[in-house]
């Protein structure tokens, strides 16, 4: 009996020891839970490719603190139950240093508590405010907040003297969160919502919806979605002869939607990070250099594919992590977490990040620039 116990102990010791010995040479493991396939693949696809690109770059340069980075990408297909399973797996089994992702708010919300329990840094690439509010110790997010985007739109509306608006949103987390924030913030800015429509994220024709809005006699339309439907909204609106300004969310930041909407996209207004207009940014803009580099690198890495803001979220998540490691000068999860929480002035694709213990997003309204579409290209208003 004693002998057997001893043997088990010895085996366990061996496992433990081999673990610690290997530590020095072992790579830093970073997990990523992204919806590369499934309904949110337009987010997860660019994110995964961006991370692969960045990790290859880091490793070519000799890694971080002398250690290589090992990226473990898990495709969740936007299913929360898989995200849950993968988060557990990455934390308990792979013992990753941090997790980047998930791509969608629903998944992020579900593994928020898993990251907390596992004391592992989670850098969410999803936008919902609820991910960092209430603040969870280990959970950060890189996309700009809906709230700031809406405030930016309202500032613009004030300039254009718009007070009556119609709101369209898709039935996704993104759409729902945006709609909620608009409803909450509009009265504070003297704006009335006279029409409010929710449509299916897979909708292929929204003529009925825009007709309803037209009937409500509004001064502008605000559409909040990240799906292809946002191109359909503007097309259908123009087709029924609606000529009022159309505001889109920062989710419009993909040139493909402009291409898809064709001529109808001309003059659409939307707040977005500066990635989309990197080449026309003033020379002294602090983000310009990084943005141009990301654009170029991504295009060469993905054989000609344009980068999108979504990939940018993963880009930011990764560089913030590395910055955290460099600042903390260690790969101790706790130390890095504290370091990230106190990072200031990190230049990313989404803006300049200033974290604090009460702000795990680090971006403000100045992360947005009001953009429009001119001749099929994004331009600063």
């Amino acid at each position, binding site marked *: 009996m004693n002998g057997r116990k001893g043997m088990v102990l010895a085996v366990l010791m061996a496992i433990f020891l081999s673990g610690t010995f290997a530590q020095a040479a072992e790579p830093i493991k970073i997990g990523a839970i992204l919806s590369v396939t499934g309904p949110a693949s337009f987010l997860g696809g660019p994110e995964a490719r961006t991370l692969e690109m960045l990790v290859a770059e880091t490793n070519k340069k000799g890694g971080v603190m002398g250690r290589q980075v090992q990226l473990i990408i898990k495709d969740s297909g936007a299913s929360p139950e898989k995200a849950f399973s993968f988060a557990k797996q990455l934390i308990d089994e792979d013992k990753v240093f941090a997790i980047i992702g998930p791509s969608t708010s629903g998944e992020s919300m579900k593994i928020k508590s898993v990251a907390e329990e596992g004391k592992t840094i989670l850098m969410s690439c999803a936008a919902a405010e609820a991910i960092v509010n209430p603040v969870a110790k280990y959970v950060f997010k890189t996309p700009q907040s809906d709230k700031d985007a809406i405030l930016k739109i309202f500032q613009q509306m004030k300039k254009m003297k718009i007070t009556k608006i119609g709101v369209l949103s898709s039935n996704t987390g993104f759409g729902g969160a945006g709609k909620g924030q608009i409803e909450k913030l509009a009265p504070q800015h003297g704006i009335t919502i006279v029409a409010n429509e929710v*449509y*299916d994220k897979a909708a292929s024709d929204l003529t009925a919806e825009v007709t309803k809005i037209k009937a409500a006699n509004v001064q502008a339309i605000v559409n909040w979605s990240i799906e292809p439907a946002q191109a359909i909204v503007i*097309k259908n609106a123009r087709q029924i002869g609606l000529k009022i300004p159309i505001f889109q969310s920062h989710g419009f930041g993909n040139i493909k939607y402009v291409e898809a909407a064709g*001529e109808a996209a001309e003059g659409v207004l939307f707040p977005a990070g500066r990635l989309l207009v990197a080449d026309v940014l003033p020379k002294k803009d602090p983000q310009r250099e990084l943005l141009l580099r990301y654009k170029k690198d991504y295009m060469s890495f993905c054989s000609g594919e344009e980068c999108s803001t979504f990939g940018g979220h993963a880009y930011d998540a990764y560089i913030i992590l590395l910055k955290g490691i460099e600042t903390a000068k260690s790969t101790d999860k706790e130390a890095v977490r504290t370091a990230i929480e106190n990072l200031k002035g990190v230049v990313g694709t989404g803006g300049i990040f200033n974290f604090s213990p009460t702000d795990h997003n680090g971006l403000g309204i100045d992360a947005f620039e009001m953009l429009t579409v001119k001749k099929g290209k994004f331009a600063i208003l």
Partner: protein
Amino acid sequence: MLGGMTAVTLSRFVPLPLAILAAVVITTIVGAIIEIVFIRWLHKPSVLRMVIITIGLSILIRETALHIWGESVRALPYFTGTSVSSINLAGVYISSQILWVVGIGALVVAALGAFFNLTMLGRQMRACSANRDAARLCGIDAGNMVTLSFMVSAAIGALGGCIICPITYVQYDSGTPLAIKGFTVAILGGLGNSTAAVGAGMILGILESFSIWVLPTAYKEAISIAILLIILFVKPSGIFGSAEAARLKEF
């Protein structure tokens, strides 16, 4: 979906009409290959088996498309005019592409009708659907007929994908909802009746569009399914079909 995607890819290299034609041909061939590889050699497969195989195939095609074309959304240019130009018909604004869709749809229905009623091949195909064994006794190769029907439906599907995708765009997973809607319409009109199917399609479209005035828009897609269920419960032969015809197709 396959048709639309192929057309989009090809339209980069060749002019639009040629690209669409090529896409239809390619999809037709794919349809034939699928039938020959997966269906033809099965000996008297049960309906359940066929249904499950078809579902498996649709998943497979979708996933293959994902890995070929990626997740991004594509669209063909408008055949005439642009996305904002529209034609004013008595105060109603209609995109020119809609007219293309309606026009080509009518043409296809007319062509199908002519095919089934006027050509020998069409009549043979109808004979097979009514009674496979009897048709075989009359010297009709039922296997070839099934392949042919797969090809025809694949071709029409591809053509539909091409003409609709300037409006709705096409993505790797845009096929499945359309398939279900298509099945609903086919049941509604009575299986094997293309003219009634068009009528049923219009009814369904109108019901769906009007539903958003009563129900939240997000439920719009559920409406067509609910209609499908109700039709199945109440009158499985379809609103335009006769009970006798349905009994012939009992499996």
